């Protein structure tokens, strides 16, 4: 690990000032410390924001604001989250291990780096780690990689479970930067890889995620999260599905679907949603809509199974929610 200076931020404004002078933000450290040890990340200064906003605030308009330094466990355990946003509680406890969820912050979870093995292997070519060096995943082991919105330069996935639920819930991130505060939908936080896979989010220099806001839960809707992985626990997703569904008179009145393990970002399944809205809430409709989402998929030999697996999981999750 390279040397770095360490400062514990007293508040968000101080953190942004230090970051503007070159420091990197440190949350729970579960991803960044590991990457620093591998010298994939080489910050010379860290500003610790893990002691900042940790509260969960219930607003009068029915929305819920989660401080960015709230630990993953605290979010999943909060009675309001468990009652009104089960998809979020279930997504969080689907990820990592109890120990890691106790340390990992919400902001850090949003900004975690890919788990592509070629990103971690400094002897391999990786456009995300060394822009312009090439991508060894395309010709290598890529059964866990992305099939949607990939580019010739990168096929890595975003590894989070929590973020998939946040996208399905239309959550927003609150951001503080040198130029002031702004709000961005979680769905718009990430960039597709294109020719610049090392640029992963729309955050500008020194911008800090200060909170995540969940809009009021959809009245009468049910939601859940399902993760398909190589082993039962403590593994990243092959495919995961977050879904929020409201059925009225056997018709889909409201539906939000997001997918993990299939793209460089938590993927909002808008094609499927358009097909479903107003359609009969039945298995055939679910299957056709889910398959439509993957018409644009560009799989490689070893991850082509995701193009048939993911629609089946989506259809089954919707069937479970509607039944």
């Amino acid at each position, binding site marked *: 690990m390279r*040397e770095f200076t360490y400062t514990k931020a007293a508040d968000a404004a101080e953190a942004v000032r230090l970051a503007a002078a070159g420091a990197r933000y440190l949350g729970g450290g*579960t991803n960044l*410390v590991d990457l620093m040890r591998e010298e994939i990340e080489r910050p010379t200064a860290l500003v610790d924001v893990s002691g900042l906003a940790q509260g969960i605030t219930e607003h009068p308009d029915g929305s819920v604001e989660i401080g960015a330094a709230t630990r993953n466990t605290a979010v999943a355990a909060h009675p309001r989250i*468990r009652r009104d946003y089960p998809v979020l509680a*279930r997504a969080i406890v689907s990820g990592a291990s*109890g*120990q890691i969820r106790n*340390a990992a912050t919400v902001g850090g979870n949003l900004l975690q780096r890919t788990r592509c093995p070629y990103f971690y292997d400094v002897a391999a070519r990786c456009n995300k780690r060394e822009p312009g060096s090439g991508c060894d995943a395309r010709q290598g082991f890529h059964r866990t990689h992305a099939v949607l919105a990939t580019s010739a330069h990168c096929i890595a996935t975003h590894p989070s479970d929590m973020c998939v639920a946040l996208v399905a819930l239309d959550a927003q991130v609150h951001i503080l930067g040198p130029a002031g505060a702004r709000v961005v939908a979680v769905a718009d936080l990430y960039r597709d890889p294109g020719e610049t896979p090392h640029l992963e989010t729309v955050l500008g220099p020194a911008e800090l995620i200060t909170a995540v806001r969940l809009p009021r839960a959809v009245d009468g809707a049910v939601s859940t999260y399902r993760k398909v992985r190589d082993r039962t*626990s403590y593994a990243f997703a092959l495919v995961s599905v977050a879904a929020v569904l409201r059925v009225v008179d056997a018709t889909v009145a409201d539906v939000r679907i997001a997918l993990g393990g299939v793209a460089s970002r938590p993927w909002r399944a808008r094609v499927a949603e358009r097909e479903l809205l107003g359609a009969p809430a039945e298995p055939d409709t679910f299957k056709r809509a889910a398959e439509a989402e993957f018409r644009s998929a560009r799989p490689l030999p070893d991850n082509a199974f995701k193009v048939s697996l993911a629609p089946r999981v989506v259809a089954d999750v919707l069937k479970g929610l509607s039944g």
Partner: protein
Amino acid sequence: MAHEGISTAEVTVRVNGQSRSADIDTRTSLLDLLRDRFRLTGTKWGCNQGGCGACTVLVDDQRTLSCLMLAVQADGREVTTIEGLGDAAALHRLQEAFIAHDGFQCGYCTAGQICSGVALAGEAAAGVPSVVTQDLRAETVELSVEEIRERMSGNLCRCGAHNGIVAAVSEVYGS
């Protein structure tokens, strides 16, 4: 132990009820602070990348991977290691259960397993759900064998003593 050109910091941590301080290189992990500076070698250095759970300790009563936590982030906090849970003269009841159920072979993962087991009981009592919890609204979660298996999944045992580990945790904290 400051070296010229190396970023250092002074940390004070309450370890097993005792306040301890050290001047450290900022790169020091909590694991290395405990083992190398405080000579508390019960906590084990396994994968050093958050994959195995051998380094699990309690930080403010929360189970935490000490290999992924910078020691500077533990400043001012309360850390409990296996040495603080029990000793040969007065074993923790989970340690006794590990012996009774053959919850280990080589013993390398055991300190982490026991810290994890002690903490998961507190999490379930506080209503923290797991991926196998059916009723998300329950105020407390009953620790079935399935719940214990899931909640212990961050602690690997290369000897394969998992059945004994689950039996031990189940005897002490199970439903």
